[in-house]
């Protein structure tokens, strides 16, 4: 039994112009201590699929169908209080921009202690000592002093470490990291990723890493899900998928990595742009950008063979 099991998840946004599906038919499992990476372009539905797990999709979007089973309990239709007890407790989140994630008018100690007090009966002093312990775990020097400070007194890298420390406070089973390094500069990125990896190993936490950076995924996650226009189009072992992508889109992504091009040469790119969610073409959503397109692709959408470790949604998967 997987720790988290997501089946046929669909999130829609009812807008004036019609109801738009942000994600459709998303299914995957996360085993205990497993790390998976969800990659895709902006608007592919990566973040929505992660926020949907905690029922935190921004208004007016909502979960229209599908099931989410966490620790054997169906939570896709759970009430607010049940969800509140899971959020930040058993499943915590790390957001993209550490400059925006912490509340500017509250001290670090308030923002850390309140998380513990919201989930566990304990004194402020006890909460404080756990906060200090977790700040140490994310390698923040002199944590007692940091607790008294406000976010604006700290650097971006330091703030992201604090956000990670907050997500660790209650020893969660799963951490959902929504582009945790996108807003940081490259050297800090590497440090934060290394830290996340080490923490996941030490605490045996599951990790759902959302990113558009294939390099980050290959460094961190054991399994990879590639999303395109709201659907998973390929999944499998990270190393295998990146070494021999089966979907033309995945191959395009891998080929677009600067490392794949010799210096001085023009970088590879996938022609065209991802269709807007309001006008996803019939058949395979990738067909008008694909070099292997056939009539079948234009008329019939390929299904993802779910359940298997390696799956691809393509009529003409690439081999080798």
């Amino acid at each position, binding site marked *: 039994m997987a720790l988290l099991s997501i089946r046929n998840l669909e999130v829609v946004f009812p807008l004036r112009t019609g109801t738009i599906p942000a994600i459709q038919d998303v299914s995957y499992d996360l085993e205990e201590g497993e790390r998976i990476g969800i990659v895709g372009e902006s608007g592919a539905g990566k973040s929505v699929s992660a926020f949907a797990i905690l029922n935190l999709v921004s208004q007016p979007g909502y979960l229209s169908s599908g099931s989410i089973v966490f620790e054997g309990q169906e939570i896709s239709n759970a009430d607010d209080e049940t969800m*509140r007890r899971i959020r930040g407790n058993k499943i915590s989140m790390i957001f993209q921009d550490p400059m925006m994630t912490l509340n500017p008018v509250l001290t670090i100690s308030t923002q850390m202690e309140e998380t513990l007090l919201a989930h566990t009966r304990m004194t402020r002093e006890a909460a404080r000592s756990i906060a200090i312990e977790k700040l140490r775990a994310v390698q923040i020097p002199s944590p007692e002093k940091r607790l008294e400070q406000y976010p604006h007194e700290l650097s971006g890298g330091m703030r992201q470490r604090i956000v990670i420390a907050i997500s660790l406070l209650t020893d969660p089973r799963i951490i959902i990291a929504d582009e945790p390094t996108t807003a940081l500069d490259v050297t800090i990125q590497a440090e934060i990723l290394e830290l996340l990896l080490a923490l996941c190993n030490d605490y045996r936490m599951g990790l759902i890493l959302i990113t558009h950076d294939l390099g980050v995924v290959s460094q961190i996650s054991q399994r990879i899900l590639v999303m395109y226009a709201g659907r998973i189009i390929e999944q499998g072992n990270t190393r295998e998928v990146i070494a021999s992508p089966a979907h033309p889109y995945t191959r395009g992504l891998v080929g677009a990595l600067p490392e794949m091009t010799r210096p001085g040469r023009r970088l590879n790119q996938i022609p065209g742009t991802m269709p807007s969610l309001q006008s996803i073409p019939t058949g395979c959503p990738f067909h008008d950008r694909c070099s292997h397109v056939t009539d079948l692709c234009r008329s019939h959408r390929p299904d993802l063979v779910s359940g298997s470790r390696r799956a691809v949604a393509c009529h003409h998967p690439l081999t080798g």
Partner: protein
Amino acid sequence: MIAFLVRRLVQAAVVMLVISVLSFSIQNHLGDPLRELVGQSVSEEIRDALRTEMGLNDPFLVQYWRFLGNAVKGDLGTSYFFKRPALEVIMDKLPATIDLVMGATFWILVFSIPVGAFAAINPKHWFSRLSMGFSIVGISIPVFLTAIFLIYVFAVELGWLPSYGRGDTVTLFGVWTTSLLTGDGLRHLLLPSISLASVILPLFVRMIRSEMMEVLETEYVKFAWAKGLPRQRVWMVHAFKNTLLPVVTVGGVQIGIMVAYTILTETVFQWPGMGFMFLEAINRVDTPLIVAYLIVVGLIFVITNTVVDIVYGLVNPMVKLVGKHDEQ
């Protein structure tokens, strides 16, 4: 803190100087005080002699310098009508106006925060739509119309509340009279304070609502939800505290502006405050009283703004009032 206060005080002094120049310079354009003072029957020679005696024929700068020298000593001139120091006349009327402003501020604080916050959290609720609709009406209707309407309903038709005057007052410390401490005084205060609040309150409701809606969309509020905090804590601690920052700034100025709105309210309710007095002073071309009023109101404005800045510093950790700087 000391450095901050000194800086603020210097700023306040400069602002007061500008206000004094402006209010003093209009006094030559308000008509001839002599006509009011001595009537029609006095001959032109005597008028001119009187003008010279009062210093009205001196060059502007000389007059201003004399005025400023006296003002620093607390003498803002003598009211032509009351034949008493202008400042003394104003100080007699000030407590009534302060009562009125405090009454209106009370309504604003009690209603704007819960209504504004509720409307931000539940924008589609019928109560939010209703209060937004009412607030537009409130902003659009002039104070005196609201006042006359209130008088008509509650004083004339229903006869529940008095329509004019201040009612019983209590004298505190021998100098300050207030109607806030007597039942009759409070009954008299009810209608004037509601009509004074009727313009500013909707503004506050709308401001709190729109600021809070913006704050509710921020990443740190989303993160607060993701931490699994109870909703009251997300709303009241994470969202509301940040909503207060702009509200305190604009709100402080609004309370200053309310002093100006008292002119209309006091006139309709015959409230014996300084707004009512100011209107009468204009009718009587009582220039020293007019100038003194402008300076006192300017001073109130400067004081409220300074207090607002200090409060802002207390709410916003990014403003450092205390000179201490943490060594990293």
